[in-house]
């Protein structure tokens, strides 16, 4: 892992995401960007610069300022920044002024990784996706409100839309902890092998157990499922990792959700479909994310620059 993006808001699951990201960055040396998207006051008769000035006069900080400061304190408490011999943080600050009077803070982590705390103004999903457009990001860790059914339909889900639109892997936190075992589905497709590889990387960074789950839709296909599990184990063995294997029969999405429960971090490969196809045909991984009660990592197949996307097998959904 090279670079993580953690969009945060006031949700408890965002704190889980932040803590998880910090630990991941400490163990893997990945760079970290913490992003908060602040809402803009629109259509007020008086310009919002004016009310900003008044707040400053009274020494009131904008709300996002506090949120980012708490985030920085949390990262420091987790040991992301180097300390001197007396145990005082030795973090290096640099301020970079952005447009619209906003600025971001740059710090250096204990392994030399870049840590950025930044604010942007606007609507969450487009702003997060704009940040994620930077091709060096390989993982977004996001919290979620966890609404389902009608409320999700009415209010939408930022996490869902980010997972849907992001060019890199997305981990959606629901009760996310760093000591959770990882469960990865093996389907034999290339996207699944990439999911297994990223699951391995995650388990190695966290130092937790990894389980390969292969599902046979019917008893006749059990042999095939065992082969898929075998291939996955091979990928993990190459990374120097061992894993548990579980072979189950049933409807894949149902079994996966049931096996993962809230205990595991479920890792699923996203089909390498264009957005047009995803829009019309959907994607089993995104639909599983919607229904899961635990954390889910949706992995993308990394596309090296200048190469065509790798063709994938038929769709099973």
């Amino acid at each position, binding site marked *: 892992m090279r670079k993580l993006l953690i969009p945060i808001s006031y949700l408890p699951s965002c704190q889980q995401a932040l803590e998880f990201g910090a630990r991941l960055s400490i163990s893997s040396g990945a760079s970290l960007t913490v992003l908060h998207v602040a809402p803009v006051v629109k259509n007020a008769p008086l310009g919002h610069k004016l009310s900003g000035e008044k707040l400053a006069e*009274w020494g009131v900080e904008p709300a996002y300022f506090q949120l980012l400061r708490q985030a920085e304190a949390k990262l420091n408490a987790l040991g992301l920044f180097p300390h001197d011999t007396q145990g005082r943080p030795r973090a290096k600050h640099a301020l970079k002024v952005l447009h619209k009077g906003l600025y971001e803070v740059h710090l250096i982590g204990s392994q030399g990784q870049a840590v950025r705390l930044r604010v942007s103004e606007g609507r969450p999903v487009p702003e997060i996706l704009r940040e994620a457009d930077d091709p060096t990001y390989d993982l977004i860790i996001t919290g979620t409100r966890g609404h389902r059914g009608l409320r999700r339909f009415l209010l939408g889900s930022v996490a869902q839309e980010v997972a849907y639109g992001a060019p890199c892997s997305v981990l959606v936190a629901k009760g996310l902890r760093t000591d959770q075992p990882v469960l990865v589905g093996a389907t034999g497709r290339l996207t699944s092998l990439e999911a297994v590889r990223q699951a391995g990387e995650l388990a190695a960074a966290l130092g937790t157990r990894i389980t390969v789950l292969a599902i046979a839709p019917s008893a006749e296909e059990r042999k095939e499922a065992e082969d898929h599990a075998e291939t996955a184990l091979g990928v993990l063995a190459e990374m120097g990792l061992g894993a548990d294997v579980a072979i189950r029969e049933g409807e894949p999405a149902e079994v996966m959700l049931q096996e993962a429960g809230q205990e595991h971090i479920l890792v699923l490969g996203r089909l390498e479909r264009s957005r047009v196809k995803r829009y019309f045909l959907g994607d089993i991984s995104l639909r599983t994310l919607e229904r899961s009660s635990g954390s889910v990592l949706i992995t993308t197949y990394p596309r090296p620059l200048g190469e065509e996307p790798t063709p994938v097998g038929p769709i099973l959904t």
Partner: protein
Amino acid sequence: MHFLHRLAARRWLWFSILVGVALLLVPPPPGLTPAGMRALDILIVAVILFITEPIPLPAVALLIAVLQAFFALASPDEIARSFMSDSVFFIMGSLMISVAIVKQRLDRRIAFAIFRLSGPRLGRLAFGITAVSALLASFIGEHTVAAMMLPVVLAIVGLVQRDHPQVRGLAAVLIFSVAYGAQIAGVGTPSGGARNAIMLDYWRSLFGIHVGYLDWMKYAYPMVLLQIPVVPWLLLHTFRPEVHDLRRALARLRGQVRRSGPMSLAEWQTIGIFLLVLLGWITLSGRYGLGIVALLGASLYLVTGLVKWEDLNSGVNWGVIWLYAAAISLGLRLQQTGVASWLAQTFLGVLTPLGLAHGVGLLLAIVLLMLILTNMMSTGAAVAVLGPITLHMAKLAGTSILDAGFVTAIASGFGYLVIASTPAGMIAYSSGLLRPSDYLRAGARLALASVIILMALVTLYWPLFGPTH
């Protein structure tokens, strides 16, 4: 790649275009001319865009002008004229005056005066903040008070948080004291909010009724006074604050924001010019119009150097003025093309079987209609769009047009439930201390109380003024 995402994000824009085109192809219903149908088309599309906001609202305002010309509803000169009137001057001038007042540090004086009068107990402080916010907002506008007083209460909350980290209830009580205090008062005088100027405009241009500054206050001000005690009482019972003694926080605030000695000349001048403007509104508006007096005030602030043009330029959201101008223009066009009376007739047809088609029943129906609409879109836009229709309903039903207009303007201020419906609500939400559900919890109770108070005024107080238009 991002094309479909954009398509989905703009779904309401496409929907409104679809509706707009579809309505052009449908033959007009009986009682409506083809021109009326096209005006109704603009109205429906504009309302969809006002509510769902897929594009910036000022852009909707510009499109209202463009479409009027394309649909041959009026000549370009007529459209331009309908955009600008004394009411729009009044909205512009009042906002410029607001900026001049906010720029001064009068908020500090006001805050310390409240602290001295009410003491450090939360209950009395909430009452003091509500009362002062309301009384000020009724004259200088709710947005002005929200911009001045919200920083004060946020500073208090921040200082209390040093001792007690969990003060969400306290924060909600104090923030809503300002936000709702300002909001209930916006209707008190014509200068309290832009929607009042729009209503005055409709009375004058559609029905030839002139209402003066004091006449307005006679009808509407009791609404402000009766709601003042209700707000803090409801807030204290809804949010159950964690801390009641704010002695330490207030002492810290005094230490932090050092007293700047006696009132400065600039502060006296600011107050003096505003009082002059107020006097002008009360005595001269019949002759010169509210707008001209407001422009006089704004120019005095510029002449005396109390405010720089650059500050006015960045402090006023000119897009909001475009929005009101466009809404008024559309309202006039609805009247001209007969859409207003057609819609009024249609609505009355719906209300008749419910027994709400005349008198107090009709006024109650208007209140409920406004309550729903104002929680869905900007207050001023709600009055501008519905004003001509509710006034026509009253005319057709033989109910007082004056009462219907007041009820429309007053109920448009009941947007307590949704963050985006008022400026004060939005500034309060941007503090990050409130959740959307807080607005629903407090807002629903306050809305109920306000409707009851308003209906009490309609049935018990307004009849004292005798039969009106």
